[in-house]
């Protein structure tokens, strides 16, 4: 980076006993409670499963993970850090440092997966691919350029779209393997990353909406237009990237539904209505249930599809607040 790094103008000792925005505390606590490290996941149990994948499937998996590594690296070293000078409260700054660190944990996790499953030569080949794939580099460049721009709210838009949309062409694959009972420990690790990114996207999108509160109607319209323009630019590139990766195994169309589904959630995190109609967001139910066992349609009491419906299973929550 040649330009001078922007830093917070003036730092005061952070007082966690004076809170301006309760959401900062809620999210800090949530992130701390969710903290994890890749060493906790028994990745080596996937070695046998890895051996059942074809060389093509192995190469695809390596490439997907190097792509995710690149995005996590961008988010850790540029993205989350670039948001700090724009923070509205000192506690928001602290939350952003937590986010930046966890992104580094995520990036490192993929290296743990690589060293468990693949040879040094295969790892080096996958990283070489990541620097040479035009669409992957383009998506990193688009987002990084916006982070370096001078508009704090546009930076938050770019960040939310990265957290809530750009990762999902990659996240699809471990969910797919998991739905076929393959690389299930790797999938467990990726689920932890997905959960973190969901909190990050929610929080940064929330802060974007707080920033909008004091904006003029013209400025609001400008930012809304900007969000959809950026989403379209990223989406077109994402479709190309998806074809680059998944055409060889015939999964590209299925992945695209997953992209649409997540693009809608990225927009909602920013406070905008979902854009893709349900006809193109009908994600493969096996992928959805790999993501969340609660996500299947049997829970829709209204539609009557819930023949297997039961009144809530007993859940032990250990909360002391209940009086009954």
């Amino acid at each position, binding site marked *: 980076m040649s330009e001078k790094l922007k830093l917070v103008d003036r730092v005061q000792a952070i007082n966690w006993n004076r809170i301006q*925005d*309760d*959401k900062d505390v*809620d999210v800090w606590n*949530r992130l701390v*409670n*969710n903290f994890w490290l890749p060493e906790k996941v028994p990745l080596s149990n996937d070695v046998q499963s890895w051996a059942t994948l074809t060389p093509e499937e192995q190469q695809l998996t390596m490439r997907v993970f190097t792509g995710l590594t690149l995005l996590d690296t961008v988010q850790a070293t540029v993205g989350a850090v670039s948001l700090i000078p724009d923070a509205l409260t000192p506690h928001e700054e602290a939350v952003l440092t937590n986010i930046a660190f966890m992104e580094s944990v995520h990036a490192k996790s993929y290296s743990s997966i690589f060293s468990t499953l693949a040879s040094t030569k295969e790892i080096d080949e996958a990283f070489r691919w990541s620097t040479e794939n035009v669409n992957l580099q383009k998506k990193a460049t688009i987002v990084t350029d916006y982070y370096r721009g001078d508009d704090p709210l546009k930076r938050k838009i770019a960040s939310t779209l990265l957290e809530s949309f750009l990762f999902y062409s990659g996240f699809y694959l471990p969910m797919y393997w998991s739905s076929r009972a393959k690389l299930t420990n790797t999938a467990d690790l990726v*689920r932890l990353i*997905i*959960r973190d*990114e*969901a*909190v990050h996207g*929610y929080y940064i999108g*929330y802060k974007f*909406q707080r920033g909008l509160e004091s904006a003029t109607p013209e400025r609001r319209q400008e930012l809304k237009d900007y969000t959809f323009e950026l989403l379209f630019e990223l989406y077109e590139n994402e479709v190309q990237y998806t074809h680059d990766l998944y055409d060889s195994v015939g999964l590209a169309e299925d992945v695209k539904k997953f992209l649409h589904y997540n693009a*809608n*959630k990225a927009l*909602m*995190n920013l*406070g905008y*209505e*979902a854009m893709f109609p*349900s006809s193109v967001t009908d994600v493969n139910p096996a992928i*959805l249930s790999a*993501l*969340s*066992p*609660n*996500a299947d349609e049997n*829970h*829709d*009491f*209204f*539609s009557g599809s819930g023949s297997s*419906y039961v*009144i*809530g*299973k*007993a*859940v*032990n*929550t*250990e*909360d002391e*607040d*209940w*009086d*009954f």
Partner: protein
Amino acid sequence: MSTLIVDDQVTSASPVGDAEGPVTDAPLIYFSSVSDNTHRFVQKLGVPAARMPLLTKEPTLRATRPYVLVLPTYGGITGKGAVPRQVVKFLNDEQNRVLLRGVIGAGNTNFGETYCLAADIVAAKCGVPVLYRFEVMGTSEDVDRVTTGLEEFWT
């Protein structure tokens, strides 16, 4: 744009009862944090609805007719703390519990096993069904399905 003003459903403070808070005859009662995601979803339904106070220390609502509860779950590893404390306080009031007929959960499938967990917990504890789940602030399809579903549910 919904013309509904949720506060219209909340009348003056009740002098009686444990809840001690405003009385409501809305058929839909919900909690939404300052992120307003659940609030936006409820507004789109266009039915009378009452929002619980944001702060736990404020007096909670008191329901006076059967109602459906809408509540969000934020991503946590375990179930601990999944149900917002404001909702726990509201349901600790027996009358509120007795009038509860069903639960609608808000969340995000990216939270994995805890997707809409708070709705599951409340439904299990109170012996009522989980009627529906939606993500973030709901799509237009979610709004249609819940609007129709609630109409049928109350008839």
